[in-house]
């Protein structure tokens, strides 16, 4: 992974972030250790490893940013953000080698039913951990070309879908695969990549 913008050693807020998730009785997102060490609190309920121009609630900003800036440093965002009485969500964003993962699920709003919401969050974060471990396997096997990323958008308020995107591709012209059944589809895709049944190729530069 590239270097994070927040250098570790300045007093990571990771324990504070973990305590906050613990208070909400939610599992902590699978932030890679080198990024967790750089987490800093940037809002009342959220933490990031780099200074941000937008708050996590603005999901589409982060999606668009990663498309627009191929040289974006690795970063992670975790925490709770929103506005009003019900427009609140838990967030886990992770941008690194081979991955650009954006999860935004309802949490903290006045009308939330905690138990089903908690179950959904736990399930998705557990899936994210599995996905990241398979991605690492694929990377270590040299199956993911440099500059290629698996982009995942999972928002109940905004966009949901997935796609492979390499740095040379025009993001706007690259179609998202639909969200339906995407968790299983992505795990299967990575299994196929690791097993050599699916070959990832970068597109020739335009």
């Amino acid at each position, binding site marked *: 992974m590239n270097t994070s913008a927040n250098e570790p050693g300045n007093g990571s807020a990771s324990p504070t972030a973990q305590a*906050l998730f613990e*208070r*909400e009785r939610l599992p902590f997102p699978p932030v890679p250790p080198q990024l967790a060490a750089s987490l800093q609190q940037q*809002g*009342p*309920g*959220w933490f990031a490893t780099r200074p941000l121009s*937008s*708050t996590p*609630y*603005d999901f*589409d*900003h982060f*999606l*668009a940013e990663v*498309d*627009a800036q191929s040289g974006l440093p690795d970063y992670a965002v975790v*925490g*709770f*953000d*929103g*506005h*009003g*009485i*019900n*427009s*609140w*969500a838990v967030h886990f964003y992770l941008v690194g080698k081979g991955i650009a993962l954006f999860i935004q699920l*309802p949490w*903290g*709003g*006045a*009308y939330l039913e905690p138990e089903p919401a908690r179950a959904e969050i736990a399930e*998705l974060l557990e899936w994210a951990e599995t996905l990241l471990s398979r991605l690492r396997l694929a990377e270590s096997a040299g199956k993911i070309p440099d500059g290629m990323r698996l982009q995942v958008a*999972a928002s*109940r*308020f*905004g966009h*949901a879908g997935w796609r492979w995107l390499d740095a040379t591709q025009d*993001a*706007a012209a690259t179609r998202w695969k*639909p*969200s*339906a*059944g*995407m*968790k299983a589809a992505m795990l299967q895709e990575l299994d196929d990549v690791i097993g050599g049944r699916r070959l990832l190729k970068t597109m020739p530069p335009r």
Partner: protein
Amino acid sequence: MKPISNPSGGTVRPVEGTSTDGARGPNIPHAAGQPPRSVDLVSRGEQSDASMRPRAAPPILSRQVSSQGGEIREEAAEVRQATAATRERGPTLEDLLAPERRQDATARKERVQLVHSALPNGGAVMKRLKDRAARERPSTSAEKWHALRNGKPKPLDGDRRNAFDALIYADVMALAETGKIDFWVAAATMRAAVVDGTLGHGILAPDRQLLLKTLDRMAMHVALNYESKNLNVTSDTLPAFTNSQVLEKPTMLGSGTYNSVFAVKLQNPDGSVFDGVFKPLTRTDRGWAAGATGIPEDDPQTAMRNIATLSYAKKLGLDVIVDTRLALIDTDTGRGVPELGLIMERSLGEPAYRITDVSVLTRPDVCAEVTKLQLLDHLTGQGDRHAGNYFIHIPPNGRAKVMGIDNDQCFGKNMTDPAGIQRVDGDPERWGFRGTGLPPVVDTEMEHKINKLTERNIRFMLGNKLSEEEIEAAISRHKGLKIHIAQLRSAGRVIEPEQWGRADVQLRLSAKNSYVERERVKAFAWQAGWQGIKALHHSRRRAACDVSTRRDARGRAASARNNIW
């Protein structure tokens, strides 16, 4: 909600000595426990628009009449005599001031009664201050011994000041509870009692000054709430509910760490229960849609935007926004003072993203009601309408009801195009919006309501809520929507209200031009995987009106309900 009288006697005349430092206090309406311009704080539900305007307090309060029949009869005799004398020689200054003096005297009697009953022997503060005075100027032998033992009183600062404030707070609370009045009215009542000598006889002058100042501060807390939020005091922003109407202790709904929202049960003026959600106002707010449309981050005017949205919906007769008002409530978070916030009626039904029965989203009444909300959003420039901030409720055997909440990211001055709320992939200026394009179909009722609205209506409706630039943008969006509706009329796409179930109408709706179709596509996708989407398009294209085919598609969707994402 009962009218709140000025504790100094129901008149608007400033009480003598209202300023502790010799200067007149700030011109803040709620200072000294008096509502702005002597406005009766009456819940909006019980009054017409005209009665929302500030009005003078009644000369004699009904409470006084009912509780003091004998005195009233005496007063009536006095009034008759005075009237007869006036007829003979014309009114003197004395005659003119007499009614007001009688009111002051009656109010003082009431105040004395309340203070004596709520604070036996003057209450905890007076006990403490009299003890200090006795140590400073002991007169009896016991006081002299006491002064010798404890020394001269020390300045009331630091911990002593905190303890002093706590005593005052407890006494004010006792007054509020005994008199069944709001905290800030009780603070002003106690203050008036100190000024008129009912309380505080013999206490040290500096202590008296400090006491008055502290009571001022407590009474002015209400005003400061408005000031700190930079919220104009208008008939629309006066608190519709205050502490005295809270029926049950507010309970936290949101996290508390990052989102403080409370469930509250309040008493309506007619005695019924208002089940609401209360969110204290914050001074700042961030949000992509707000920033992109020109809503200032450091002064977002969240309350005004919510209230303006409700006003707009009411004006158009579009019942798709929750009842939203201001309230001043102590949420018992330990600060001990009421907070100004928005109170919204509790939404019924489910947020749109949680609708598990996709057939709900194809109901004609749901299509119509969600389209009304969408049209309102185009008019208000609402940039953040996602499936979590509007609710769909299907009452048993009734018409669907749609309710939008969190109406604060709207009325930005830069949003002049009604279609501008649409999310556009790849466009940095549009990618953060959560709305859609303009609807491809409207019904005659919607057409009539929007065409009937005039620029003058919009100015009148929003004039005391938004800036001139924001109002101009609203006018521009209304013009744009009228043009769009005229185009729909020309293209034969204005239907009758009962025709939302027509196959050709449903086919025109897409995720890019319709909220309801956007949610429908997502629901199918989440619930049924690819098969669901195929079933949706297949069933709609082949036989949109074929009930059995649609039921089959829904059945397949339901069977795959757990296969989300």
